[in-house]
């Protein structure tokens, strides 16, 4: 239940009540209606032998839950859409996913706070060479977009890290906190220029 606490037993899970009838909360939140979104018994997409043993914050919107899941030797961004035809856990990216041209090798880790907006999932991903980028994945198109990253400095300041929060995006503007080298920070409202941000390869189908 706590986004920062690890349990060695690997018995963390994500659970939720969905389709809540607010006029009848006692029935809506009954134990019988509590559903498992993901837990240590869930099948990890793309990694047949893997098992989850840790989950981080899992924002939910209209039956769609995104989360950072990890286990021995892997970590990834995943989602589960309980309103879709296929309600199984779906991958966005994991630590075996490479994005040539951005960084060498595969993703190394992910920020613990993904966000959901209008059928899109936004997350911070880290790669080799201190690479860090903010990515947006469109579920409806199965496409991954790079919103911004640290390959270009802001003025003369080198970017070390990004932080995003739950209400990240409004229309084509997003808010992001930036940590620079020298341990200075800035908070920015960024514009996503239409047709000008980079579309990345989709994950393995």
């Amino acid at each position, binding site marked *: 239940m*706590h986004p920062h606490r690890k349990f060695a037993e690997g018995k963390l899970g994500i659970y939720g009540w969905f389709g809540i009838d607010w006029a009848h*909360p006692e029935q809506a*939140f009954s134990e019988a209606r509590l559903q498992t979104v993901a837990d240590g018994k869930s099948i990890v997409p793309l990694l047949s032998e893997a098992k989850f043993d840790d989950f981080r914050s899992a924002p939910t919107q209209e039956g769609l839950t995104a989360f950072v899941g990890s286990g021995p030797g892997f970590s990834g961004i995943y989602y589960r859409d309980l309103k879709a035809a296929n309600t199984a856990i779906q991958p966005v990216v994991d630590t075996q996913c490479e994005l040539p041209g951005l960084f060498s090798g595969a993703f190394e880790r992910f920020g613990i706070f993904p966000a959901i907006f209008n059928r899109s999932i936004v997350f911070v991903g880290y790669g080799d060479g201190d690479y860090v980028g903010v990515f947006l994945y469109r579920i409806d198109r199965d496409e991954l977009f790079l919103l911004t990253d640290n390959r*270009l400095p*802001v003025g003369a300041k080198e970017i070390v890290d990004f932080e995003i*929060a739950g209400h990240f995006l*409004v229309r084509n503007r997003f808010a992001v906190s*930036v940590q620079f080298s020298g341990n200075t920070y800035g908070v920015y409202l*960024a514009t996503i220029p239409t047709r000008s941000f980079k579309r990345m390869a989709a994950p393995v189908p």
Partner: protein
Amino acid sequence: MPPPGVLQPLLAKVPFSNFRYPHVDENENVTFIADDPVYNGKAARHGIYRSIARTGELQPLVRQGETLVPGTSVALDWFRGLQMDGPDFVFNATDKAGERGLYYWTKGALRTIARSHQTLLPGAAQTMTDVEYGALAHGHILYNARAGNENLLVLYSLGDDRARVLSRSEAPIPGRSGEAFR
């Protein structure tokens, strides 16, 4: 390469040492926690602020050492876990008395949702001893709390000021026969 010039600094001049939890609302106002001492912040102006897009004004909303726990003379001290719903927000804070609380802010007014050694949750044998971050949506706040050894998942309704315990330690885990939440 990412598109040049995507990142634009906020209009407001913000003389802080760090920024956390940046949220943007429909009016493109950005609300954030500043000067977090955990992130090497100097904590000189630790608090929750809003940068107003239209005017460039920076509004202090909740400030360390100045904002009081509602109904007390105890000042709030350290903020984290900022979550928004429109212009309203919840946050987790430790106060100068060492208690940990969850607070709801709307239109300049602060409401205590839960505070350690003060809030008694339904069915709990003792007052709450700890409270985690809250999530705010549709007039409800969802949070996790502890009362002694018991872990409780609580839904607080802003409309009728009522806390409902949704799940707790020893409740059965769905799909896991014989296993219970801790």
